[in-house]
């Protein structure tokens, strides 16, 4: 079964600073990968998804970007953080053999 790692677990950053959140997946190959943001502990907002290396689709225009430099690595970045970027960021993976997604433990980002 696959395991999804996210780091860091928590992060406090000043407004205007850069961001890099990393997600790595073990136990599978060529997964679909997703970045979600969860604000106020409720609904999930899909930010980006990737069906393969270097292939990124953005769901909403925003201050963030994503990259997939390796098959099982998905990175969420920003050049300059905004207060509104605060939230709980979740990485998810779906393999070709399953229909459900599996989620990582999340990163709590606070922008001050």
């Amino acid at each position, binding site marked *: 079964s696959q395991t999804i790692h996210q780091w860091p677990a928590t992060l406090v950053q000043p407004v205007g600073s850069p961001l890099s959140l990393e997600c790595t997946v073990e136990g599978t190959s060529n997964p*679909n990968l997703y970045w979600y943001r969860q604000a106020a502990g409720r*609904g*999930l907002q899909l930010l980006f998804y990737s069906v393969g290396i270097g292939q990124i689709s953005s769901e909403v225009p925003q201050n963030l970007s994503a990259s997939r430099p390796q098959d099982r690595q998905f990175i969420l970045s920003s050049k300059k953080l905004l207060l509104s970027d605060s939230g709980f960021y979740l990485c998810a993976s779906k393999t070709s053999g399953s229909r459900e997604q599996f989620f990582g433990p999340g990163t709590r980002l606070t922008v001050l």
Partner: protein
Amino acid sequence: AQSVAQPEDQVNVAEGNPLTVKCTYSVSGNPYLFWYVQYPNRGLQFLLKYITGDNLVKGSYGFEAEFNKSQTSFHLKKPSALVSDSALYFCAVRAVRSGGSYIPTFGRGTSLIVHP
């Protein structure tokens, strides 16, 4: 377009009583349906799914869900609630034919509170 409605922000139930968390969906064609649970400051954990076949699906931790095509519902149930079941529950739907992205739509979540 596909959508999910979880009409209750919060469900309160006494320990030992049965619980139901409601979910209705809208999708073109046949659906894949999912339930996830989220504990505070954790990622979502997969509970169960409906793909095809039996309308009653059994999942982890004693949970089950019933697919009702005519009512487009997929309510989550458990015969006897535990205090440890208190968490945030998400329903999700995806059309069977949805292209290579396989992106599900999630509900807003329902907070389940089980009282001792």
